């Protein structure tokens, strides 16, 4: 990953012509130049993705292989982070736990943001009775503390990764629809939408070509904030015994249940899953923060198309007084 970063840095030194680069590359360069912590977050996020993807190759042992003779073994050369009460290698379990976190984080956030976008766009754009009706349901849903309603639904659906993803996605998706709805209402009065209607654009066309691109920034920000939330909520649920059932190696689950009785003898069992969790949530949050600063709707202007505005946006951004 370090190689990849230094490559893009080097290329930014050589190639100074902004217009020839695509928007994501330009964003990446801005990220590295202006947000060192955000870059660190991006590296952590990328590392999480890669570890999750190549868990099979990276883990020294299968995650559920019991080495009964070496149960509760302290960290050593053979078991770098030690073993748990069943003699399972902690490092391997944490590496496979990364895979769970990646899937829960990404798929959960995707469900959440899609639901928010669909509900919010429809409500915001059409308004009227449909909006009124849906919003009352959203109100009713938001009457309950998130964790509590998730617990109730999870106890009904039963444990399992897909149940967790679905429940978390729907729960945060419903409350997130408010954000999208107000973003849509915010752009609804704009002349370009009236123009699109006037030239006879069909509703789906207007929604896809004119509404969605203009609310993309808050949606991307919501996605980046949803990922760490999902990872955190999943581990909390698994910790309570409502999330992903054992022996699947989930970071939250590794800290719960029968393992707790053995932590007094083997403190490493209590440390590593939490370190992994905190590290990843920290990294993804940092990355999301930097992304938000870069995508901030006030600064977004015409990034990607109008060269003049890009320069303007950059000059506003470099103003030292801008609060973060």
């Amino acid at each position: 990953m370090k190689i990849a970063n230094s490559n893009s840095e080097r290329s930014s030194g050589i190639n100074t012509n902004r217009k020839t680069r695509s928007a994501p590359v330009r964003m990446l360069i801005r990220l590295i130049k202006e947000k060192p912590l955000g870059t660190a977050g991006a590296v952590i996020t990328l590392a999480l993705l890669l570890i999750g993807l190549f868990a099979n190759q990276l883990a020294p042992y299968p995650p559920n292989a019991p080495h009964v003779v070496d149960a509760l073994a302290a960290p050593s050369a053979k078991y770098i982070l030690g073993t748990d009460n069943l003699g399972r290698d902690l490092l391997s379990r944490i590496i496979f736990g990364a895979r769970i976190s990646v899937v829960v984080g990404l798929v959960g956030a995707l469900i959440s943001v899609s639901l928010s976008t669909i509900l919010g766009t429809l409500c915001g754009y059409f308004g009227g009775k449909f909006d009124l009706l849906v919003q009352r349901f959203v109100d009713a849903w938001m009457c309950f503390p998130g964790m509590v309603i998730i617990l109730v639904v999870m106890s009904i659906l039963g444990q399992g990764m897909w149940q967790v993803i679905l429940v978390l996605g729907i729960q945060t998706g419903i409350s997130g629809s408010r954000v999208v709805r107000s973003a849509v209402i915010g752009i609804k009065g704009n002349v370009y939408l009236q123009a699109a209607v006037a030239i006879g654009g069909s509703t789906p066309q207007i929604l896809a070509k004119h509404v969605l691109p203009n609310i993309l920034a808050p949606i991307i920000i919501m996605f980046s904030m949803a990922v760490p939330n999902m990872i955190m909520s999943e581990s909390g649920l698994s910790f309570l015994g409502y999330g992903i059932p054992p022996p699947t190696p989930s970071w939250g689950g590794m800290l719960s249940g029968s393992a707790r009785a053995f932590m007094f003898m083997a403190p490493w069992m209590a440390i590593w899953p939490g370190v992994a969790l905190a590290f990843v949530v920290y990294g993804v949050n940092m990355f999301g923060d930097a992304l938000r600063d870069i995508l901030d709707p006030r600064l977004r202007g015409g990034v990607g198309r109008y060269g003049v505005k890009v320069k303007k946006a950059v000059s506003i951004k470099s103003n030292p007084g801008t609060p973060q």
Partner: protein
Amino acid sequence: MWQYITRRLLLAIPTIILATLIVFITIRLIPGSILTLMEQQYSYIQNINMDVIKHNLGLDVPVYVQYFRWVGNIILHGDFGKSMWTTTSVISEISAAWPVTLELGILAIIISQLIALPIGIFSALRQDTWGDYLARSFAILFIAIPGFWIATLVMVFPSIWWGWTPSIVYIPFVKDPIGSLGMFILPAVVLGLNGSGSTMRMTRTMMLEVMRQDYIRTAWAKGLRERVVVTRHTLKNALIPVVTIIGMQLPSVIGGAVIIETIFGLPGMGRLIVTSTTQRDYTMVSGVMLFFAVGLVLINIIVDLTYGILDPRVHYK
């Protein structure tokens, strides 16, 4: 203002009715009902008549009839029903549990503010210094560290190093206020740390925004001391959105309390909802969820009312 409060309360009624309806129906419609659990539980009894049990629990009529019975009993008799397992009344269970969650929640929020406000203010006043960077990194770290992990470490490591384990035996506040606070302080710190991160960042952002206003320049120009400018002029205006954040955190504080109560074995609302959902105790779940819904709506109204106290420009119509 009273008119405003009345209108808000009236508007909340249909929302709460809809909310209870959703909970009431979903928990009953989904398989694995209380009857199956009871059949397993009482399988040692010969010739058990499930129809009688079903009738006694009031589950032999359609769901909508059950709902109207439940609502009718609440409105007409103030009766929230009985637990389907233990037959203790829902009211008595809730009134035993909610002071625990209330004390934990209030303490957690106070601790969270005690951590967040000074650091947030400091971070804004010394913007872009090392202290600021350090404070902001801590803020995100507090958000990233899961409460249940800290709680686990707090239980495990003192016991390994010094053979000391925090003893969490619930002491009611009314019986022994000091003992009660002492017992709650550890769970509350764990719970408060999580919320403090976002409040800290909000405080910093708002302080920075207010510090650039004209009236702050005027205050400096008048020759006021820094302390006065910060406390009387900046802080008072910067805190308004911070109050919103605190209000918005309450649901997550309650959600976090569920986990913290389970770890420390506190007999609060969180544990009540966890046990009653696992047992499919329909009346208890409905009662507790109704309590949560009403509580959150009231809290939201109170948060909105505090704007009027903090910001004289806000008027309620």
